[in-house]
């Protein structure tokens, strides 16, 4: 790996400043960092041919009893309302993905805001599953 193209290094530093442990999984095309916070898994992805793009995210399995339609409805509501975070439903895998996608001159720009971005990712996922449960209960007439 060519270290000169490791443009995610400032984000790695931000993760360490948060007191978190991390792992690297880089290849010729992409730079990937994975880490956990309070037991939940997160990832950071960047592409060697597009150093201005940075994505931070987390992925969760949908509950077995949740319908894709309801999940999509909740995701749409959150996409209208939430700052920074995009919520997407990956239908084939029955996963919900929460991502923050940024255009930066240098990933160092993300560093001072990393804690906030992690907070919004965590809060959005919590809100998503809370609202999904509420939707399910409404449908059951509970």
């Amino acid at each position: 790996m060519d270290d000169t193209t490791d443009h995610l290094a400032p984000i790695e530093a931000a993760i360490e400043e948060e007191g978190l442990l991390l792992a690297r999984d880089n290849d010729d095309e992409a730079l990937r960092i994975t880490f956990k916070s309070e037991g939940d898994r997160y990832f950071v992805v960047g592409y060697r041919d597009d150093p201005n793009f940075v994505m931070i995210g987390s992925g969760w399995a949908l509950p077995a009893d949740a319908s894709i339609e309801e999940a999509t409805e909740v995701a749409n509501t959150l996409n209208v309302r939430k700052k920074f975070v995009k919520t997407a439903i990956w239908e084939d895998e029955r996963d919900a993905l929460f991502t923050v996608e940024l255009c930066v001159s240098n990933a160092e720009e993300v560093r001072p805001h990393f804690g906030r971005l992690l907070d919004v990712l965590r809060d959005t996922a919590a809100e998503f599953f809370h609202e999904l449960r509420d939707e399910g209960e409404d449908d059951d007439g509970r």
Partner: protein
Amino acid sequence: MVSESVSRFIEAEGHRVEVTALEDSGSLAEIVFRTRGQMFSVAVSEADPNRFSLSTAYEVPDWVRDRAGSPTDTLSDIEAEYLGTRFMLAQDGTIFVATLEYETTSVEEFMQHFWKIVGRLRDAGNTAVERMVDRSESKAAADKFIREFMKGER
């Protein structure tokens, strides 16, 4: 050992930990970690393996100290609202330490509820800071009104 079990658990959850023995005997230990921008410590005793003490510290804003006098009343109110949480002013009142004592049947049970306990302590601490600030603001407004009133301008 209890300290090893707890520190391994916190590490497995993704957090770097520092473990410090608090006694020469090695019976008491403090495990320090950081989450959501805040340092927490878990005090454990090998002699009393089912008791845990979780602590975190908050700064008392300068202007709160100057205007509201002692924030002890606020901390007492929050202690009543968050049962099991204790607050202690430290370093000449510049900070307060929030502590939650947790007694359980096993280390595993403590770890099962670990992040909820951390969240509860964080809520109590944040509420205390918010309440101190609110009281200071309302007290400052009341003081201002009283001063003006005494001058006969109202």
